[in-house]
């Protein structure tokens, strides 16, 4: 699963890599992610880095584009990758965004690099005849990803930045109710930081419409075997379980994710300590 890097570029605060990976491009659906090996041979970094697939193109049998911010050593290494280098990828991984059966109106909300996963989704929705409206936000202008593309693609596009350097000053959740109301939206899709997903879900619940959110938790494997990426999610049966974001997510129904309890084991979760367990 090694692919050759075709192009690298900077997009504001982000780095973008296009990699030839037909096996991944073929099976891609919006919301999928891949994991990338960082550091090369003899590296001291053992775990792969999860990155959402931003785009796939048919060139060279199939390419995937990844967009990322430098955070620690792994993404710093990735930022130095050059065209013609090879990259070791595993994917596509995760459960993609579910698409509505019938045409409807969808608001797509992205925070920071989270917007990256929304354009392929927007395409797929529009192909099915859906109306798509975008709300993209970040702390500051150069961290808002994909504003231009959103403007071309969306019925409306609303931008927010916390410092007011682009669009409205504030958070996506400040403008979301207005957008939902104006568009008479049927569903919200969101990808971004946990705090944003919680806020978006709260708004959707208020409007009584479903939210499909793609969560982010620390992942060691990305393929469902290590159990490190769990999130408390309420099942159909009303029971909270610690579900793996990598295989049971990253996309969950927002109302089912217990955002307030992320980073804890809710006392009423299946198998929570204090029950009749070990």
């Amino acid at each position, binding site marked *: 699963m090694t692919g050759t890097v075709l192009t690298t570029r900077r997009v504001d605060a982000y780095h973008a890599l296009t990699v030839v990976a037909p096996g991944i491009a073929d099976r891609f659906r919006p919301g999928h992610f891949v994991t990338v090996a960082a550091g090369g041979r003899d590296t001291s970094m*053992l775990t792969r880095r999860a990155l959402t697939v931003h785009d796939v193109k048919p060139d060279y049998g199939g390419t995937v584009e990844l967009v990322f911010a430098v955070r620690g050593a792994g993404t710093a290494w990735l930022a130095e990758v050059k065209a013609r280098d090879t990259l070791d990828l595993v994917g596509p991984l995760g459960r993609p965004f579910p698409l509505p059966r019938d045409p409807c109106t969808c608001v797509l909300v992205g925070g920071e690099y989270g917007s990256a996963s929304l354009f392929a989704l927007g395409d797929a929705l529009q192909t099915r005849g859906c109306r798509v409206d975008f709300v993209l936000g970040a702390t500051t202008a150069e961290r808002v990803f994909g504003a231009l593309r959103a403007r071309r693609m969306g019925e409306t596009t609303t931008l927010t930045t916390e410092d007011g350097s682009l669009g409205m000053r504030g958070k996506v959740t400040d403008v979301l109710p207005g957008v939902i109301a104006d568009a008479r939206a049927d569903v919200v899709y969101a990808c971004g930081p946990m705090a944003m997903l919680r806020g978006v879900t709260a708004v959707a619940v208020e409007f009584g419409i479903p939210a499909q959110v793609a969560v982010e938790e620390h992942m060691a494997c990305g393929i469902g075997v290590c159990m*490190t990426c769990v*999130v408390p999610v309420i099942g159909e049966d009303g029971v909270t379980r610690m579900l793996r974001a990598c295989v049971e997510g990253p996309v969950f129904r927002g109302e089912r994710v217990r955002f307030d309890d*992320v980073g804890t084991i809710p006392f009423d*979760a299946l198998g929570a300590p204090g029950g009749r*367990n070990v």
Partner: protein
Amino acid sequence: MGADLRSYLAHVELPNPVLTAAGCGGTGRELAQFFDVARLGAFVTRSITMAPRAGRPTPRMAETPSGLLNAVGLQGPGVEAFLERELPWLAERGARTIVSVGGGTVAEFTALSRRLADAPGITAVEVNLSCPNVEDRGRMFARDGSAAAEVVASVRAAIRYDVPVIAKLSPDVADIVAVARSCVDGGADALAMINTPAGMSIDVDAMRPTLAAGAGGLSGPAVRPLAVRCVWQAHAALPGVPIIGMGGVTTGRDALELILAGACAVAVGTATFHDPYACPRILRELEELLTERGFDRLADAVGLAHRPAGMGPRGRTDLEESSL
């Protein structure tokens, strides 16, 4: 013609020596997307507990230099769900299944073993002794030879005589051989080593432990020198006892290192997180290395590095190391 790769855990024959490490292969289904789990020497389950367990809060992982800290806390659905949904699937697929068991008291290990006793399709039972003993202020069983032996004996008593019981040990004890010996005296048919030593990482920006649980278990190549040392010591002291070696195996060379130290089988944990195909790849690499070195049988390589200085590379073969 490749070497004969069969490996024996007591009288149980495995077609090859490469296993998944407990807690690192999911339910088997996840890996089956990448390779046929029946090609493993055996599939080792995560540690199964009596009741469902939600595990520890997140973050549960932290990367360290050539290592990984984890604090999953034995999340799992409990033994009933395991027997209903996981074991039958593994049996159907033709995988040999080694069931890892975990518990907080001897009584719990006993109950769990009884529940497993009649289940079909169990190749061996591995006792995860790195569980906190709730009756001894949470001290790990593996840290105390007699507590470990008691657990092993209770499992051995409950499990059918023809199903080997494997004692899985931690390296962070003053004398691994003493603990290993206690476990064998307690009825262990084989040893598995090493489980993860306790480690910790602190986020210097948040100025707090990186893991929600504070401490975690360290795995990956960083700990391989500890694993090789433990396997070596146990094999030297207890040459007749089969050892499943693990800790930082990422290549066939790493697997061979543990085998030369005295392991007759090798388990792969953290490497699978990086490379889902790690197990079959390592098996292939190991086979090539054995062939290059002229081994007809894996068994001839087991513990070979113990041969006295001055002896040729194959000086050990006539010692019937293979009779494990």
